[in-house]
């Protein structure tokens, strides 16, 4: 049954060229069906898991021996996020001016990216994770360069060459660990890591380098702003919303939990790099003039937050990290949706040319306010809860200084987001922009969905907490072994 997560999008992509000939409209509806299918299935599993056995303690609920797949609390949250963000991306790209006869190819690549992500989430051994990681990465390189424009090419090339280096080092590390443990699945790797010794440290250094680069953490983040700004609007939603997080952050969480465990040397490293990314990301974002580029740096900062949550090393920290992972996927894709809407309506993303769009584009305006406030961590919204949990976890884990850093960074986050809101949506409308109208419903409906999710998961946080997130720390049981 878990295989369906991989096969359905794969088949969806495979039949695209055939569909183009026999049922032209089908090319639009298939991706929607696939993504909706994923949301429903994941929702149903979560519902069943919750209702049946109290809370979702999917220890190792579904284990497919042959293909070594596995679904548990963490991957369920990831799958839900993948489903939602890809659904929203497809909805947004229905109206987006893509070159018509290449549209089936475009949808195929998006579905392949979804396949890659799903595979990566359910895989239980590092090598097949690498393979699916490559599927997602290559698909996203192509999607970035989809528009044939100079920026797209440049952004894609930089992202490609940097992640190539990352995968090389990842594979070398896999080889080293394989040499010691004789196997590549998490269980065997964990055994190998327990023996300790310099080789384990070197392989963790390589893996940390690869995953930090893939998730865009500070010193390794060079590609991220260029890739996000250069890519076409719907692709940037997918990319910023979920690809980077699954490729980088999810893998890191999975490896830390299953293979390397919370040993203090790794955790301190993760904490420092996380803190650096959070603060510098926020500072860089403060000075930006381009809507998407500011959001890109804000992503770096938020991913730094998730890493700090993980690095706290306590179950609470993990819960905070996973919840912020989910929240960030939601409100970051919401913000990129808004930037896409602004771009389609006004044709530009530069703050100096934008201003006072709120009354002309009410829906985009309000949803972007919700997104911004959630990112900055304003109480009723979901972002607040996850940041709060992370800060509390850091504080309780004894990293008081880093807790202050986290609070300081979120203040700067609020500053640059308000700056953004003021430049783009409030204030008086710029002369050239009187004529613009709100984007079409198909475009702003996804924004409303995402905003609703942020608001409700914020308000219903207690319910979300003990039903969806508590099982996540059942993973820590794994660690105890």
């Amino acid at each position: 049954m878990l295989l369906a997560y991989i096969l359905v999008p794969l088949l969806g992509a495979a039949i695209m060229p055939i569909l183009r000939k026999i049922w032209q409209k089908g090319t639009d509806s298939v991706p929607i069906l696939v993504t909706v299918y994923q949301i429903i299935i994941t929702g149903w599993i979560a519902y069943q898991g919750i209702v049946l056995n109290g809370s979702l303690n999917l220890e190792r609920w579904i284990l497919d021996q042959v293909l070594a797949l596995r679904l548990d609390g963490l991957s369920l949250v990831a799958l839900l996020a993948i489903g939602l963000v890809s659904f929203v991306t497809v909805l947004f790209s229905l109206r987006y001016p893509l070159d018509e006869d290449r549209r089936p190819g475009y949808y195929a690549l998006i579905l392949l990216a979804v396949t890659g992500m799903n595979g990566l989430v359910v895989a239980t051994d590092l090598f097949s994770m690498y393979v699916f990681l490559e599927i997602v990465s290559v698909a996203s390189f192509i999607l970035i360069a989809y528009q044939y424009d100079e920026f797209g090419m440049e952004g894609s090339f930089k992202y490609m060459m940097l992640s190539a280096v990352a995968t090389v080092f990842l594979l070398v590390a896999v080889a080293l660990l394989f040499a010691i443990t004789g196997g590549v699945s998490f269980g065997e790797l964990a055994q190998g890591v327990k023996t300790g010794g310099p080789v384990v440290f070197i392989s963790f250094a390589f893996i940390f380098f690869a995953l930090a680069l893939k998730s865009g953490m500070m010193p390794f983040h060079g590609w991220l702003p260029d890739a996000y700004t250069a890519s076409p609007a719907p692709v940037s939603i997918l990319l910023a919303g979920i690809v980077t997080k699954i490729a980088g952050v999810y893998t890191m969480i999975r490896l830390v939990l299953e293979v390397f465990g919370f040993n203090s040397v790794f955790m301190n490293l993760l904490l420092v790099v996380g803190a650096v990314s959070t603060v510098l990301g926020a500072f860089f974002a403060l000075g930006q003039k381009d809507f998407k580029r500011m959001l890109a740096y804000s992503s770096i900062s938020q991913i730094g937050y998730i890493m700090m949550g993980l690095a706290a090393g306590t179950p609470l920290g993990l819960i905070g990290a996973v919840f912020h992972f989910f929240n960030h996927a939601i409100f970051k894709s919401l913000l990129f949706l808004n930037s896409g809407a602004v771009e389609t309506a006004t044709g530009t993303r530069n703050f100096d040319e934008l201003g006072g769009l709120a009354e002309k584009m009410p829906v985009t305006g309000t949803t972007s306010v919700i997104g911004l406030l959630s990112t900055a961590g304003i109480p009723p919204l979901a972002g607040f809860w996850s940041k709060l949990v992370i800060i509390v976890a850091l504080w309780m884990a004894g990293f008081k200084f880093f807790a202050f850093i986290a609070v300081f960074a979120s203040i700067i986050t609020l500053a640059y987001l308000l700056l953004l809101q003021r430049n783009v949506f409030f204030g008086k409308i710029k002369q050239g922009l009187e004529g613009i109208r709100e984007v079409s419903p198909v475009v702003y409906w996804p924004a409303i969905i995402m905003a609703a999710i942020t608001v409700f998961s914020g308000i219903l946080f207690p319910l979300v907490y003990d039903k969806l997130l508590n099982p996540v720390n059942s993973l820590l049981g794994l660690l105890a072994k």
Partner: protein
Amino acid sequence: MELHMVLLIAVTLIPMIIAAFAAELIKSVIALLVGSVGLTLVLFNLNAPIAGIFELSVGAGLIAVLFILSVSLTRPLAKEESAERKRQHYRRFYVLPIIILFLGLILYLNKDFWINAFPFTGAQESASFGEVLWGRRGLDLIGQIGIILVGVFGVIVLFRRGKMNE
């Protein structure tokens, strides 16, 4: 053991250095080709025949062809292959062989430290390549199908606009 060393250094490392070092792209591609053939020999020496064959056919063959294709496509434009540019290239790359030699010597000298760094306790396994591939690595197959599809769609999407009207 010595054969392995000879093969390793003479046939793979040195061509790779030349591949990086060579000024003209064609020379570096050919050097790369030689290097990958050398690698195949090393793999055979490690009695991993299937990997060697694969490396030979795909690594050496397909990739070399692709490179030559792309170099030839771009060559007519970059006519001003002036001596000055070549000199500039060497100025940048002359330091590479020195570093690699130096690094290789250091690593080789204190290799004993690393000897016991790889404690392996697992049992030997004599399963054949087929059993392992089909039996335990089924997921990789699906992964490969996926990646191939991505490659296919990628090329289609990137080159459909072949006419490149602008």
